[in-house]
């Protein structure tokens, strides 16, 4: 088993090394994009107060460093990053990192639940479809996944609120917990879970469809492999053959795509957070755009890309664990 550990360690080192240039690229490109956007926080603040003069706006800009040349601002931003700081928000007048860290757990919870739900249900449905290929369970599920695939998440979310919250009154329609209920322990967990069900389900429908179709295709391909015939020739039960021999091999392509989808899951989370008034990063980003608070937006971009890169490394690790042919180091 030492070989497996060694392999995983090498995969980890390689993944981290590869992540560094990616993050540098993200920082540079995001910063330039922010500079290209019209307007700034001072414009919005001035507009809201209604009594601003050119002088007060100049003071505001000077205070947040918005009047500095682009290069100076960039150097300042990078210097901050080197100290694990994302700067201060002009709009909220608190460190950007505090704003983001306050929202990050809720977004990660939503994304993680949606991804977990999508992977488990998607792989499960895909396995059933592949086992009953071209028979009625496969045909019915094909239609269902096609629906999941084509209906936008926000519509699913609205319909879910209409049915489960408004109609049946089973689940809360928004927020991430009951406000000021002062719940603790398991009561709190239960409360958050109840709030989580609808948004996580709405966010995952598209991904359930993607993983189900992918798993079906991958399993059908693996089913034709010689080693599956070998497994059958051993006298194994079809369920054992399907899980131990077919699914395990089919998971390799599925995990690759699942990892790639984490980025789009983050994008989808913004829409769902708005529908369910979920206090996450997505809504913070939306507010930051509306208030032209680009330091917050930049911070969110950097943090989300770190999340995506971390997930990418984790997927590589999972890959290496699933497929022994992936060697961490080039030779071997």
């Amino acid at each position: 088993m030492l070989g497996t550990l060694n392999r995983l360690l090498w995969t980890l080192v390689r993944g981290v090394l590869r992540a560094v240039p990616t993050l540098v690229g993200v920082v540079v490109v995001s910063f330039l994009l922010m500079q290209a956007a019209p307007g700034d926080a001072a414009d919005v603040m001035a507009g809201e107060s209604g009594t601003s003069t050119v002088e007060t706006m100049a003071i505001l800009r000077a205070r947040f460093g918005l009047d500095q040349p682009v290069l100076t601002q960039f150097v300042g931003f990078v210097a901050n990053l080197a100290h694990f700081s994302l700067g201060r928000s002009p709009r909220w007048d608190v460190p950007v990192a505090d704003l983001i860290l306050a929202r990050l757990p809720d977004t990660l919870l939503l994304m993680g639940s949606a991804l977990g739900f999508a992977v488990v249900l998607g792989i499960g449905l895909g396995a059933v479809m592949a086992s009953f290929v071209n028979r009625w369970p496969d045909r019915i599920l094909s239609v269902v996944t096609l629906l999941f695939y084509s209906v936008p998440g926000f519509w699913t979310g609205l319909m879910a609120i209409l049915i489960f919250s408004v109609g049946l009154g089973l689940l809360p329609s928004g927020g991430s917990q009951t406000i000021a209920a002062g719940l603790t322990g398991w009561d709190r967990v239960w409360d958050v879970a109840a709030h989580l069900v609808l948004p996580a389900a709405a966010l995952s429908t598209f991904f359930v469809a993607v993983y189900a179709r992918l798993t079906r295709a991958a399993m059908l391909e693996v089913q034709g492999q010689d080693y599956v015939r070998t497994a059958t020739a051993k006298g194994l039960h079809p369920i054992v053959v399907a899980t131990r021999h077919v699914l395990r091999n089919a998971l390799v392509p599925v995990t690759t795509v699942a990892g790639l989808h984490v980025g789009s899951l983050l994008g989808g989370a913004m829409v769902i957070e708005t529908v369910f008034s979920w206090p996450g990063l997505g809504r913070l980003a939306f507010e930051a755009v509306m208030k032209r608070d680009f330091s917050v937006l930049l911070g969110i971009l950097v943090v989300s890309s770190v999340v995506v890169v971390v997930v990418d490394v984790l997927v590589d690790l999972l890959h290496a664990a699933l497929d022994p042919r992936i060697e961490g180091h080039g030779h071997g």
Partner: protein
Amino acid sequence: MIDPTAAARRPPLFALEGLEVSFPGRPVVRGLDLSVAEGETVALVGESGCGKSTTALAAMRLLPRSGRIDAGRIAFEGRDLAVLSPAELRDLRGRRLAMIFQEPMTSLNPVLTIGRQIAEVLIRHEHLSRRAARARAIELLDLVRIAEPHRRIDDHPHRLSGGMRQRVMIAIAVACRPKLLFADEPTTALDVTIQAQVLDLLDRLRRDLGMALVLITHDLGVVAQYADRVVVMYAGHKVEEATTAELFARPLHPYTRGLLAAAPRLDTGLHHSEGRLAEIPGAPDGGVDHPGCAFAPRCPEVRADCRVTPPRPLAIGDRLVACPPAVASAPRANAMRGAHDAVG
């Protein structure tokens, strides 16, 4: 080697009776009879596409989805595998009946260690604990002559050479001491030096474990060395069956004679510089549009009635030939010995 006449008198361990297998729109095995006695090695020979592999897959009920057994019995230990329930079939596969395949490179699961893949069949059929199955797996790796089995057992297949993978396949196949092993071109994908080792291993295990072996091959050198009896197939039909010695001494069917002539031999002193290697003109699936003999379009000795009457296998002594003209011109002594059979 087992005395073939003694083997013939014993009730067969395994018998195909009138087996017909087809893929959509294409019959592949047509009315095949085949019997295998306990401990016997029967070689199934013929060109690619003649239905040898399909016969073995059908016997194990491992045909791909599109393949169908249309007719016939597959008798094994008093049961008909052709109509056995999936559960009964699973109980036999890997325990009483086993098979190894042509492609050792792809026949092992790439994501599981070889130890697990061997242990799996022991846990399934002998209900061993994981630990006991692992210990047995190490013994089996040793049995198939893999060096340092206790270290190799945790390797994944991609770490092993083709020859070693085929040994692992053999270890899996013989793990539960089956009575019958199908070996579908077990050495075709291996290089020549390894071929002999793997075949010797199979032959030794057959003797030691008392199992019968159905050896599917197109290599007549392999047949001559390892088989007790040979069944020659052509386009899904059995065209000739004889003990190995008799077949090589006096091939009767024109197709068998062609096969033997096409095999390169050193003892004739024939080198490509001195003479051309013989070949059978045409290809086996030449689209037979007459009711007669499938080999007729390629047969050098074809007669008019060959294309009209389907040739029935006729017995000459203890051999069978599906070619009336060949039977007629066979040496008299043999023909007399089997006369009463030949009439029927």
